[in-house]
């Protein structure tokens, strides 16, 4: 004799109909925040740390200059000479001006005014290289620059 009635103990099925929706939401979030890398970086660089940083907003107006030590395909550093990378190739300092002028031509008229060149340079780069790059940018009339850095934690 038992007090409890014995029901049929079938485990109720969990309704997973909304699971795809949840996943899609997360997916869309990641799709929005992600920025696909267009170029393969061929130099190794570590940007300096700072506190007073501003964010680069518009992607279409930005162009990047990478300065660091050249690396092989597997990521190992080949030499200690500082190299400048524009788009996909390593260039000399005298080519920077020409390239920046080309880059300006590809932009739309509105973007051209707000063009920002982000210099992503390694910490240990000698200032001479940076100065030369700045001069080249002045010649190309790309006057807004941004010295890339990461936030300092303390």
């Amino acid at each position, binding site marked *: 004799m038992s007090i409890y009635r014995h029901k049929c103990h079938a485990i109720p099925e969990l309704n997973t109909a909304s699971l795809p929706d949840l996943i899609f939401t997360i997916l869309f979030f*990641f799709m929005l925040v992600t920025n696909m890398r267009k170029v393969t970086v061929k130099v190794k660089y570590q940007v*300096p740390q700072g506190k007073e940083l501003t964010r680069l907003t518009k992607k279409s107006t930005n162009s990047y200059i990478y300065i660091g030590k050249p690396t092989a395909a597997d990521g190992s550093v080949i030499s200690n000479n500082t190299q400048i990378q524009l788009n996909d190739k390593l260039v000399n300092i005298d080519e920077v001006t020409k390239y920046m002028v080309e880059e300006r031509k590809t932009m739309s008229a509105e973007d051209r005014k707000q063009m920002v060149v982000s210099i992503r340079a390694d910490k240990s780069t000698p200032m*001479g290289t940076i100065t030369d790059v700045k001069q080249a940018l*002045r010649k190309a009339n790309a006057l807004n620059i941004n*010295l890339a850095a*990461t936030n300092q934690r303390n």
Partner: protein
Amino acid sequence: MFKRERRDIPKLNTSSTADISFMLLILFLVTTSMDMNKGVDRQLPPIDKTEDQRPTPINARMVMKCSITADNKIVIDDKTIDKKQIKNLAFNFIKARGKEHIIQIQADRKASYDTYFQLQNQIIAAYNALRNEHSLATFGKGYDLCSNEQKAVINEEVPQRISEVYTMSTEATQKGGAE
């Protein structure tokens, strides 16, 4: 009469949608790089095509000369300065001199970029602190909370006047102002 057939709409099996979206999610998770593009904004002086550039007369009292030596020491007005003191020094300097001040930065070609960046960072910190103080006095709120028009007013009051001396490889020096 025709016998109506009862038609049940067959249910679409959607149990695999979750798997598909999971795959996409993982793809984006792996490829995403969360590093924000952050940095210090600077403006370069335009190149003057005209050859005869007349140096504008500047009161020597209004200039703070910062230079970075080849062995990464920061020298301000002939004194070697510790990195932490720059902000205070610049803050007091700008506050005392007002709109007419000029900060001059000269870096040796062999100095490291890091030192230069830290110097820039400290000077901007000083500017930001001063602008914040100004906006608190005028508008009663921090610089970050000000509207764009208010920020423009503050920027007019506390302009960033940084000039950089470019040491060229041919030993010829060129002077240029930023912002």
